[in-house]
């Protein structure tokens, strides 16, 4: 079954094996008129990064989407399954699930699935409900935890992103302010996290739908730090 035993010898390996699933980063920000879903673009195994332009979003409705991370096979399977289930509901009944119903349905499937076999999928679901004119954002983890939140994050990057969001998030932010806030989070992650996440993608969901993919690519040399002058000198040393 899915019982994993930690032997004394294997404990460190096991912990490392599980921890590496936290190397991806997801961020979600909800404001009064829009929701932003962001994910890092890296796809890799262990210490190898295979690509830096991986899509991690699944569009569920015109104004609802989710970003996923975790075991790559599980994430794609689950994402597609939820996507198609919701499409089936829509076709059969003639109307879509509300964001709240969709989130609860997804949680139910996650919990059901985990009781059958190991399933490591973490996700953030967000969107806009045209019936109530409200934005929506939900945190869900691989155990089937569901939380209705104003901002959230998954992965190691969440340790830094959540602190920044705690400090600066307001529900009445404009889109520009929110995009700046997202950039702040990304810069902090890139400054402080030992894992390199050079590229992030994000989507804005509002009453007109889901925007096209927008990318944040920050080059290491342009990172603004307090001791920027010192950094340049250090770089000079190596060249």
């Amino acid at each position, binding site marked *: 079954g899915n019982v994993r035993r930690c032997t004394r010898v294997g404990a460190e390996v096991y912990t490392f094996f599980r921890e590496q699933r936290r190397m991806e980063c997801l961020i979600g920000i909800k404001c009064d008129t829009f929701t932003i879903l962001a994910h890092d673009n890296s796809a890799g195994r262990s210490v190898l990064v295979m690509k830096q332009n991986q899509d991690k979003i699944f569009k569920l409705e015109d104004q609802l989407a989710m970003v996923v991370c975790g075991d790559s096979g599980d994430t794609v399977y689950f994402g597609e399954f939820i996507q198609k289930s919701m499409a089936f509901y829509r076709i059969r009944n003639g*109307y879509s699930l*509300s964001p*709240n*119903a969709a989130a609860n*349905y997804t949680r139910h499937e996650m919990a059901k699935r985990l009781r059958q076999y190991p399933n490591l999928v973490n996700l953030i679901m967000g969107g806009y409900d045209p019936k109530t004119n409200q934005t929506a954002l939900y945190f869900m983890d691989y155990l089937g935890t569901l939380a209705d939140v104003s901002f959230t994050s998954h992965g190691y990057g969440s340790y830094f992103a959540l602190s920044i969001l705690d400090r600066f998030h307001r529900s009445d932010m404009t889109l520009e302010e929110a995009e700046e806030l997202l950039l702040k989070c990304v810069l902090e992650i890139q400054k402080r996290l030992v894992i390199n996440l050079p590229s992030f993608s994000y989507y804005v969901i509002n009453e007109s739908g889901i925007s096209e993919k927008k990318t944040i690519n920050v080059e290491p040399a342009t990172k603004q730090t307090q001791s920027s002058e010192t950094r340049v000198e250090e770089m000079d040393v190596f060249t």
Partner: protein
Amino acid sequence: MARRYDTKTTIFSPEGRLYQVEYAMEAIGHAGTCLGILAEDGILLAAERKNTNKLLDDVIFSEKIYRLHDNMACSVAGITSDANVLTGYLRQTAQKYHLIYQECIPCEQLVMQLCDLKQQYTQFGGLRPFGVSILYMGWDPHYGFQLYQSDPSGNYGGWKATCIGNNHQAAISMLKQEYKDTPTLKEALDLAIKVLHKTLDSTKLNSEKVELASLTREGEGPNAKTVIRVIPGEEVDELIKKYQEMVEAKKREEKEKEKEREATKME
């Protein structure tokens, strides 16, 4: 000749009919009348109480009106034991939906699911169909107030006003004439009493013989709630009295006119 095609439900007759299903509908035609009317601010269900035996114990909620979920209720006509099984299934289906989606099941989906079950009994297994027709009233955010009817064949339809059970044809033809588009709930109640007067066997209509329930929405915005209410006996009696007074008033008017006509003739 038709006999040979009666014994199994899962067989068509040479004329292309399913006799067992039709016989089930016959059985329902002998059951107590159920009436449903859709108004612009609510829905009402009226049901004839057939068990007016004095020795029967008091009913807690209702004899013929079943609450299915926060947003839906139904009334049945036909074999009561079959009805109990079906309402149990309806309630369970509604809860299963709520468990997964954390919101009330949309009305048509619940009706559809039960009708799929009823249809199975006309196709597989060699079991007899359920001898029950059901009237559903409900509210959901997709289509607002809705009134549905389902029958033993597993067909269902959305209605503005309909009737099942004893004398339902008379009731439906009366509703066709009297129902005007989008009545208020008050007008619908008056119409229901009028129709019940015609369809009930007994001459004297009183609150003992009829059950009325209404479904309305109260409150505004996200705090709005669906309220399902069985109208208490006194209110029903008042409505009946109001109708009877109106009938009396009309009779008196007629008599006056007669007298006038006589008077003018004499002259």
